């Protein structure tokens, strides 16, 4: 056998500079941002939203360990979030009891409850994953859906464990204080969420860099071939499933401390669907994609409903739009925009970008006008749509025509641009 001594082999690993820029820097930026936010003195609303965002970031990233990394489509990921959350919630109450009566839990800080959540989620993943990870693809998705329905129903049946539909409540201001945080005011809870969101993100990122993480990607790409490099794809899936369950449980634990309540609704198919939307809209192919999705959807969920009661319709349309026109998600869109700016900053490309944006804007404005008019008309108590000081009444024909014309113009422009683009590429 030829002797390949170490010095003869070219060093193929990326330079340490590159490694720093792509791997460490984003995490440092995230940490910095988390540290800077409190300096801006955010309002209570912003803080509670940020806390929700933090929880959802960890949840969505854990979901993407399945969908993006290992290629497993699950409709029941909230189950692990729920089990983790319940574990943490029970532990929180044990801490409270122990703080009066003494016991092992008395020494456990509430700050560390997400670890209990992690254990709960991972344990649930280990039990439920054992049968379900033996299938992949659509059967796996269907099993996850069936199990999610069953467990959601069980959540209402077993009152002792899940507290009925009113759930379990607790008080986070008990036990040992960590880092001098009483966790009473929402500002202190922010630090708790920030810490765990960062820790969760960093750990899940680190996971992608481990042999198991890499193999998960290999299983996603080609499960058959994985068998012929010595790995059992089902076992790889199972291990990733446990890890994903654990991190979902971590998010559940964060949620338990943040809200001081946990209800069986958190186990149901609705949050499972939402986390799927977060990961997919954000961009399941990229590690940071679900982070974007979590931010956007959490914000939409809590704030869009202030502006329009049809926000679920917009969410659905956005989701469909992303699947059809931007399957790489928000992260993909951002990256292609960035690389577009870097590589071909010509007048022509700028014009085309402008045209695309205009067309998109027309479609959105026209569509929104029509939907809002329709909503008001359907409500039927004479409410008028008044965007930007305009006065559009659903009872008149003209506003409908405005909307229709704008939408048609937008769609027309998009079609034309698409044709031009195709013509050029030929």
């Amino acid at each position, binding site marked *: 056998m030829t002797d390949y001594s170490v010095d003869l082999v070219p060093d193929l690993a990326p330079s340490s500079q590159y490694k720093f820029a792509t791997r460490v820097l984003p995490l440092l930026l995230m940490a910095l941002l988390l540290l800077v936010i409190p300096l801006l003195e955010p309002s209570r609303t912003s803080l509670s939203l940020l806390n929700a965002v933090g929880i959802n970031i960890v949840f969505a990233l854990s979901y993407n360990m399945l969908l993006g990394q290992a290629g497993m*489509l699950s409709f029941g990921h909230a189950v692990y979030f729920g089990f983790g959350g319940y574990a943490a919630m029970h532990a929180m109450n044990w801490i409270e009891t122990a703080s009066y009566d003494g016991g092992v839990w008395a020494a456990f800080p509430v700050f560390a409850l997400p670890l209990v959540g992690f254990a709960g989620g991972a344990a649930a993943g280990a039990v439920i994953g054992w*049968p379900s990870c033996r299938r992949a693809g659509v*059967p796996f998705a269907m*099993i996850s*859906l069936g199990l999610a329905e069953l467990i959601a129903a069980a959540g209402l*049946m077993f009152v002792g464990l899940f507290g009925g539909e009113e759930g379990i409540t607790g008080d986070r201001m008990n036990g040992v204080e960590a880092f001098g945080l009483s966790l009473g005011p929402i500002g202190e809870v922010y630090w708790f969420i920030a810490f765990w969101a960062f820790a969760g993100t960093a750990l899940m990122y680190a996971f992608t860099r481990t042999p198991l993480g890499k193999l998960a990607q290999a299983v996603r790409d080609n499960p058959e071939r994985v068998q012929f490099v010595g790995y059992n794809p089902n076992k790889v899936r199972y291990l990733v499933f446990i890890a994903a369950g654990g991190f979902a449980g971590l998010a559940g634990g964060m949620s338990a401390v943040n809200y001081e309540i946990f209800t069986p609704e958190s186990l149901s198919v609705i949050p499972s669907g939402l986390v799927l939307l977060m990961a997919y809209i954000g961009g399941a192919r990229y590690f940071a994609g679900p982070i974007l999705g979590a931010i956007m959807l959490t914000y939409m969920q809590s704030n869009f409903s202030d502006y329009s009661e*049809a926000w679920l*319709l917009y969410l659905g349309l956005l989701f469909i739009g992303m*699947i*059809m026109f931007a399957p790489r998600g928000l992260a993909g869109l951002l990256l292609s925009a960035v690389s577009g700016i870097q590589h071909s900053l010509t007048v022509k490309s700028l014009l085309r970008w402008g045209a695309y944006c205009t067309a998109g804007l027309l479609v959105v404005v026209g569509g929104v006008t029509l939907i809002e008019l329709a909503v008001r008309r359907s409500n039927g108590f004479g409410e008028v749509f008044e965007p930007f000081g305009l006065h559009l009444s659903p009872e008149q024909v003209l506003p409908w025509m405005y909307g229709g014309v704008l939408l048609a113009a937008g769609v027309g422009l998009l079609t034309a641009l698409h044709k031009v683009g195709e013509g050029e590429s030929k």
Partner: protein
Amino acid sequence: METVVFALLNGLIYGLLLFMLSSGLTLIFSMMGVLNMAHASFYMLGAYFAFTLGQSTGFWFALFLAPICVGAVGACVERWGLRRIHAGGHVGELLFTFGLAYVIEELVKIIWGKFAVAYEVPAELNFSLFELYGAQYPAYRMFMLLVSITMLAGLWYLLKRTRIGLIIQASLTHPHMVSHLGHNVPRIFMLVFAAGCALAGLSGVIGGNYLVTEPSMAFSIGPIVFVVVVVGGMGSLAGAFVASLLIGFLQTFAISIDANFAEIFSFAGLNPEGDLGRITISSLAPMLPFMLLVLMLMLRPRGLMGEREF
């Protein structure tokens, strides 16, 4: 005895309604590989269309017109939606229909309002057919039975006796074959999708007034339809039929059993007031299909009568 007779009768009606709903999905799923999560939304559209059309044309015309309209909507969804993303793989398609279900529900709320609409059984059929053990048996149920059996026969004829049916049958089991035969595959896909949706629409027409026509009707029945298709097996209409009836009977029988776990497992000393002992068989009824789904996928992933695995 009367419990059994009634459970059989009701299970049969419910099962046939499920079969009408899921036969379309079986066709779509087996041929195109699309597990259409919005399938129950087309069922809902069928009921709403029938309600609106029925106001001007009467129920009997709506019975024919509404499924056609639903089929047209389905064709549009396939043509301008699914077809574009077909190349991206089945996960994308699955997610597309998942989003579509959201959108259809919200649109229905805008168009028909958020409350249930007064879609009633037609007066001609609103009488009781016979009385059995003190309970009346409504004529409309017999009508539903009739419609679903007619549909079943029509579908059978279409698949066994017509050219297009043979092509569809061939592509149920060998989806890649058809393109080699020189057939316009996209058009066949569109046709099958539209037909599947129209079948769902038809079940909406006759199920909407039997049950309730309201915006959440799709969401509440959707998952059961998957169960039927998966349990029945890929590419098998007969399997879907058996699975529908199985689930129909299973659910209605379970409801009629009042015993709770504490009674059944009395040897284990379960506390009838405890969480576990308190559970009755009848309260588990709606969960049974999902248990069946999970067990089936784990033990026999090709389903009852499936030609192949997913």
